[in-house]
């Protein structure tokens, strides 16, 4: 086995985005990294997937057999939901409640819009069926499940030729007995059907949220099954026999088999990868408190990492963009899921976001985007609306001849015309002034997103380092950091493909949970202990796949309790004290809860009863993290890296100033220089404002520091 271990020393990560499919290869012994980029193939994304892999292996002349494992991040699941291309799915619930999905939460997504639309249920009413049965809130059977009604439903499933079934019966989080019976009965008659039960997918109370999560899981499972199978086949054909792993929304990866049965866990697969990349990179350099900032063509994503861990939320809706200023409860559009998702805020601010003047005479940016087609005005592809990219070009921040791997040559005249026609004329300002205002307003929206994940959660940004990546991130990150009060910024090498790298350095994580709903003043501590014991067994079981990664997987457990004051509805996630579960353990736990409540809401009520709602456990199989590769370079002199000068507008100077342009490929570690400066590399441009200085670290990362 020793010899095989030596061969299997490459890992590959593939990240499929809207425009490009990125592959990143890493040598896990040396830490060397290589990347490739191909166009995404929307009709069958697995084609782009395999060609990105092929491209990189051929280029580096690496044997397909020497692959340790392959990790994948994808938006296939989200896209299927947003585009309404989910599988034909039936919904089965308790008699009397077939309209659970139609009624949803009975609210409107916008308050003052008489023409509003309610999100269309993922399953039409004629495919929602009722089974005769009933449990009460204690999980006791009030009405046994009726065999005849099961048979009737099975006939309807056959008649309607559905591909998947979602089952959510009332109070099944307490007692899954009826869901299990129903699933078994259907499986006997229809063994090929994909069936999800709510007690398996997310055994937590509040029926609509549980049903919605189960329906999403079930309605994308045939699609994910087909997709993953197709990738596996292609990899096999290409002689890559290594295990295929998939990025989850919670920032961990899971096995392809687990992805097929629980696809709901991968809806935010893509954005999560970027956050993980930030956290691992930061950690390897000794930073534990990080704000991750990822800006691409249409959206910007911000997330907070504290003590080396991204924060994770369960209040999430698929297909619902968080717009700052759109209301704290903008979550009523879209489809809610209750599985853990990395807590990130995504806003419609990217290179393609459009600037416009509203009827009150205010300059606005986004949320509309020009997309890739026609794209910003300066692309010369027919777009006439001014965008952030146009503004950056006018300000001298971008080189018209060196943009997006030199795929496009930018036209500055078209950019100026679009700003003049659409904004400058109306506002009575110069084109340059407006271009600068566009950037500041866009930055302002992004600052709000950054505040949502930091200050608004009670975290002081000054304790954080910001990691800026994505194609457009490095151009904005320093200004944003300054606005939010962050002193230090890190721009990784190859910022455009940093997300794909995140895939290769993440642990394999399996989340399991259990609803308890007990008061700490009356409960029996053994309930908690037994609960965690059974979750450990369940979590470990999910890892029991035949993997080459590690012969004897070492599983670590992270334990949390979701707690609240008795009577409240929202829980705080409290880490379990790492000691034997006894009275002392409980005292420590309660104190952590009171403290967390005070810091979140401004008060604590020590004599009110406290309730434990859910036990959560994450079973983690650690992945060895390759060491960072040191920057090898012969270019010791700063001047060698300067490829030219250009005139760039900096808002703090209120004018264009002559600015050196650096070629990042010629940097050596330890290199120090001050802003104003521009750093160019094929997939991104970093802007260093005048009051910042840069140091190139041992590994080639740019460390920006406020002077």
């Amino acid at each position, binding site marked *: 086995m020793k010899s095989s271990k030596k061969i299997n020393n490459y890992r590959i990560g593939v990240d499929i985005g809207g425009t490009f499919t990125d592959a990143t290869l890493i040598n896990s012994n040396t830490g060397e990294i290589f990347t490739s980029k191909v166009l995404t193939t929307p009709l069958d994304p697995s084609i782009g997937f395999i060609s990105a892999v092929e491209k990189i292996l051929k280029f580096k002349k690496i044997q397909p057999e020497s692959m340790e494992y392959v990790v994948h991040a994808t938006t296939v699941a989200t896209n299927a939901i947003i585009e309404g291309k989910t599988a034909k799915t039936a919904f089965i619930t308790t008699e009397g409640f077939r309209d659970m999905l139609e009624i949803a939460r009975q609210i*409107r997504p916008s308050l*003052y819009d008489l023409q509003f639309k309610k999100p269309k249920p993922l399953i039409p009413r004629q495919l929602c069926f009722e089974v005769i049965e009933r449990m*009460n809130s204690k999980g006791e059977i009030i009405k046994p499940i009726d065999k005849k009604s099961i048979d009737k439903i099975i006939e309807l499933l056959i008649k309607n030729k559905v591909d998947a079934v979602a089952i959510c019966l*009332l109070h099944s989080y307490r007692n899954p007995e009826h869901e299990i019976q129903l699933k078994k009965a259907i499986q006997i008659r229809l063994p090929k059907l994909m069936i999800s039960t709510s007690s398996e997918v997310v055994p937590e109370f509040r029926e609509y949220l549980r049903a919605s999560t189960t329906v999403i899981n079930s309605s994308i499972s045939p699609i994910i099954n087909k997709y993953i199978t197709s990738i596996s086949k292609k990899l096999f054909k290409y002689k890559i026999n290594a295990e295929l792993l998939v990025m989850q929304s919670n920032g961990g990866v899971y096995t392809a088999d687990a992805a097929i049965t629980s696809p709901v866990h991968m809806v935010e697969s893509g954005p999560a990868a970027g956050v993980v990349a930030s956290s691992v990179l930061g950690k390897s350099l000794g930073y534990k408190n990080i704000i991750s900032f990822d800006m691409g063509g249409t959206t910007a994503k911000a997330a907070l990492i504290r003590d080396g861990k991204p924060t994770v939320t369960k209040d999430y809706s698929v297909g619902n963009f968080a717009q700052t200023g759109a209301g704290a409860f903008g979550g009523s559009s879209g489809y809610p899921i209750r599985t853990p998702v990395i807590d990130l805020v995504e806003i419609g601010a990217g290179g393609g976001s459009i600037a416009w003047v509203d009827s009150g*005479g205010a300059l606005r940016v986004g949320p509309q985007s020009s997309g890739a087609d026609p794209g910003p005005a300066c692309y010369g592809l027919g777009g006439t609306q001014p965008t952030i990219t146009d503004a950056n070009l006018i300000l001298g921040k971008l080189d018209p001849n060196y943009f997006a791997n030199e795929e496009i040559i930018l036209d500055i005249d078209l950019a100026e015309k679009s700003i003049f026609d659409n904004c400058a004329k109306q506002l009575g300002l110069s084109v340059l002034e407006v271009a600068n205002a566009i950037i500041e307003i866009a930055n302002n929206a992004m600052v709000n997103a950054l505040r949502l994940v930091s200050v608004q959660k009670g975290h002081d940004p000054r304790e954080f380092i910001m990691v800026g990546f994505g194609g457009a991130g490095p151009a904005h990150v320093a200004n944003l950091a300054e606005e939010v009060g962050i002193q230090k910024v890190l721009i990784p090498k190859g910022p455009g493909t940093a997300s794909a790298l995140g895939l290769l350095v993440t642990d394999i994580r399996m989340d399991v949970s259990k609803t308890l709903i007990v008061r700490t003043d009356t409960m029996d501590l053994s309930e908690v202990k037994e609960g965690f014991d059974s979750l450990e067994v369940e979590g470990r079981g999910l890892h029991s796949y035949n993997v080459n990664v590690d012969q004897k997987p070492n599983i670590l457990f992270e334990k949390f309790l979701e707690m609240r*004051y008795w009577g409240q509805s929202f829980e705080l996630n409290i880490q379990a004290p790492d000691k034997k579960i006894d009275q002392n353990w409980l005292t420590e736990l309660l104190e952590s809860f009171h403290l967390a409540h005070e810091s979140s809401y*401004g008060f604590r009520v020590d004599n009110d009863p406290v309730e434990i709602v859910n036990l959560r456990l994450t079973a983690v199989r650690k992945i060895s993290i390759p060491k960072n590769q040191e920057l090898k370079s012969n270019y010791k002199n700063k001047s060698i890296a300067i490829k030219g000068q250009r005139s760039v507008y900096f808002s703090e100077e209120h004018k264009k100033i002559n600015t050196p342009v650096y070629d990042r490929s010629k940097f050596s570690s330890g290199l120090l220089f001050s802003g104003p400066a521009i750093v160019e590399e094929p997939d991104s441009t970093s802007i260093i404002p005048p009051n910042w200085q840069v140091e190139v670290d041992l590994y080639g990362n740019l460390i920006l520091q406020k002077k």
Partner: protein
Amino acid sequence: MQTINAIKFEVIRNALIQATEEMAITLRRSAYSTNVKTRQDFSCAFFDSELRCISQAFTQPVHLGSFIKHIPEIVNQYGVENILEGDMILSNDPYGGGVHLNDISLISPVYFKEYLVGYVACLAHHVDVGGGAPASVGAFKEIFQEGVIIPRVKLVKKGKIDKDIFDLILEQIRSKHETSGDIRAQIGSNLTGEKRILEILHKYGLDEFNLYIEEIIKYTERRTKNELSKLPIGKYFAEGFVDNDGFTDKKVILKVEIIIDKNKITFNTSGSDLQRQAPVNSTFAQTFSACAYALRCLMDKDLPVNHGFYKYVNVIAPEGTVTNCVHPAPVVGGWETHVRLNDLIFLALSKSMPDLICAGTKSMQCHSGFGGINEYTGDYYCFLETLAGGYGARSTSDGPDAVQAHGQNTENAPIEETESNYPVQITKYELIPNSEGPGKFRGGLGLRRDYMFTDETTFTILADRDKDGPHGLFGGKKGSVSVYALKRKNKQEITLSSKKTIQLYSGDVISYRTSGGGGFGSPFKRDPIKVLSDYLQQKISYERARNIYGVHIDKSQKLVDYKKTYKLRNLRLN
């Protein structure tokens, strides 16, 4: 003289909105009652030192419109000079500029270096405020029977809760655990708001803060004027009614005239019925809220709602009528009158702006409240929720099924949460087929919710629409009427009035069946494919498709029979 910087303007404007949104998050997440924590029956706002509303969290429009009348009243009556740093004032007084007693407001001044810069305030609908029936939504003849009246009291002094006052209020209330939790959540919400407003002040200083607040109002004013100038000049009138008053079956007549002039709009409710010794009276703040909401709906979707908008809402509502009642009239059902006014306003405007409005909605709050003593713990429990109905159809789209209407946007109470906490079993929660108001675009379906009690309880219905369904427009038909039914164990089902308190015993079932929305345009002009789709989804019956929409469906093929449809429709049209 400082000048306005366009960028700072956007930053400060958004930061002020976010301060109130963060108040809302705190309130919701730390509250105890289902009505606040799950259903979001609350609102938060920031007012400047001149008591002008500057920013609001996007929660319940009904509150926001009345809030801006109530908060200044509270502060003025208590005296600005008597409200010091660290104080919080609590009030629910309908006759001090407020609404119904269930909606309790809490106000905190915000001081920056000894300067009063404004007030943060939140309002929550409390599940019980005492009075004659659990959940405090029962029908009575005087305000005194409706619950505890909190004029204006300093609940928090220098950062400490005044225990005497807190205890005095709680003693009048049945659900002490939940109410005390909700009031603490309101305090937490104000603390959060104050903190965030101060952060903004620290960053920009008092002078800039005031400068930009002024500009925020002016900006909204400019946009409001611009929007007003687009509305068609003229006088528009509609008359309607609330179905009954809770004591008699006599309709409560409502009248509204809307006068649109250049840059000005006035709502006049003169001619509406005199106030009743019954729960249907609306305070001026509630009537104002209806008019403000309606006007806001006619404007650009992203117009910020603050003083610069509200100052353009002119309301004439004669004192002593059901649209501006005087002491000591009961007011708990004032929101029923308020929301019916909304439907009337849109009806009045339908001819002149058909593409902006919608047909009749359920236009009732539709409260369902109950309470009693928990058999095991001995505690008094109370529960309250409001139910959705069908939305009115629009000129280019169907009215959505089962949603809240107009100023009300509260969520439903999850069945599992309700059953875990109260001695009730929800036995049905579903859409009501054939309840839609037919039309070229149809109204939304109403919904049905059945409550079966496992223990003795006192139940109150405070709703409406049991006589008259939501209006259709331009040939569209009315939506269904609502039904409130009681089925005692082993007895026949009977129908109840829409405003009623009743004692229930184990095994009794109360059933709410809410109205469908009104239709828009003739049902004979409805796209047959849409009729087919409704039929396939079992939202309308085969007979209804044929008789009301004139569409013949081939049941076996699941297709429209166009020949027979053509014949049916032609026959009827001629």
